């Protein structure tokens, strides 16, 4: 399945690429892994240590907040990784 995955601006700039990327994947998790195969430097920023997304990173599948990253994808789906509106320290 061809899925379009969108990454936050800060991370896109980090890899000198655009925000939208097309990957082949059968699940949400596969799509993120495919993205990380292309841009391995993003792994630490999305996950840190462990397999859970960082607390301030949100994942939407076709505009619905993802609770289970093993959920299947279909051709033309969209996955959006967002920086949660949070913080304020600086």
């Amino acid at each position, binding site marked *: 399945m061809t899925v379009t995955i969108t990454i936050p601006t*800060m*991370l896109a*700039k*980090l*890899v000198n690429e655009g925000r939208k990327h097309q990957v082949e994947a059968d699940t949400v998790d596969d799509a993120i892994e495919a993205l990380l195969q292309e841009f*391995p*430097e993003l792994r*630490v*920023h*999305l996950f*840190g*240590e*462990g*397999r859970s997304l*960082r607390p*301030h*990173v949100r994942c939407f599948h076709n505009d619905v907040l993802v609770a289970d990253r093993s959920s299947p994808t279909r051709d033309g789906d969209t996955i959006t990784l967002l*920086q*949660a509106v*949070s*913080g304020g*320290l*600086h």
Partner: protein
Amino acid sequence: MAVTLGIGTAKGAWIATSEDRVAWDVHGPHLKGWEVTTLGRAPGGDYLLATASNWYGAALHRSGDLSSWSQIVNGPAYPDSGDRKLTKVWTLAGGDGSLYAGVAEAGLFVSEDDAETWSPVPGLNDHATRPGWSPGLGGLMTHRILVDPADAGRMWCAISAVGVFRTDDHGATWELKNDGVEAADPDAEYPGIGFCVHSLAHDPSDARRIWRQDHRGVFRTTDGGDTWERIQKGLPNESGFGFPVVRHHASGALFIVPLESDEYRMPVDGNLAVYRSTDGGDSWHQSGAAHSEEAYAGVLRDAMDCDQLEPAGIYYGTSGGTVGYSADGGDSWDTLPVTFPRISSVRVLAT
């Protein structure tokens, strides 16, 4: 007499270069929007900087030209299986081809391949006192690493708010070295920790001579940390509080920035000033500052450095975003013509 400074701020890094230490060219921001916590050099010569983010965590980046930066994919990281999270790289220090990174949550990592891959140093990270380690106001972090140029197997690490550790066997084992310093937060279960060291500087020609800016004041040791003595004659603050300490090795001059106390963390009476000692810390005298009017900004522990030219160049960045510098050993001071975001790091990257 050319100097290249790296300036790490809450919102990116800037690079300041000068051929004469008078006229400066400032370019940036690099890694715009990312907090840049420290800068340094890899053994092979590449420039390094560390980023941190409340959202996206910490990473190291390298550059050969101080213009384009690429992230190091396999940077320092705690194992997935553990509870520790690496939130910031606080310091980078090299010795004998190795490069060390001091991090928060407190730990030490080493690279033996020019900063490409990193391994934890379990002798320190899993020290017997580790269950008792607790953070200071700035967090729980390894923020200063000294390597003995004459014996790369001997190192010192400063961890807040735990204390100074020394290894004599390339990091396999570590001993606490804080006798003579008052603990800031003594631990009943793990005696010997609870020391809030803020910064260290040593004499590379005799690395047993170390100067220490601590939460509890200013100290020195001449025996590698086995014993420490307080050295505060001439300081304007009874507490001896402050963050950085740096040393110009050729002249032996020491530089610190006294702050009123841990309650206030501001220059005494708004007099932001560098204090200098030319007698190894026996006495201190106001060297001056780039800020002639009242200034209440502080200088963080990684935000002062010294080149090794003659006379000494001293550089400090403030929490208010200004950079002060002296090109004559601290006799006179000036500022860079840029106001930056809050400055966390000022490092001399090249001379």
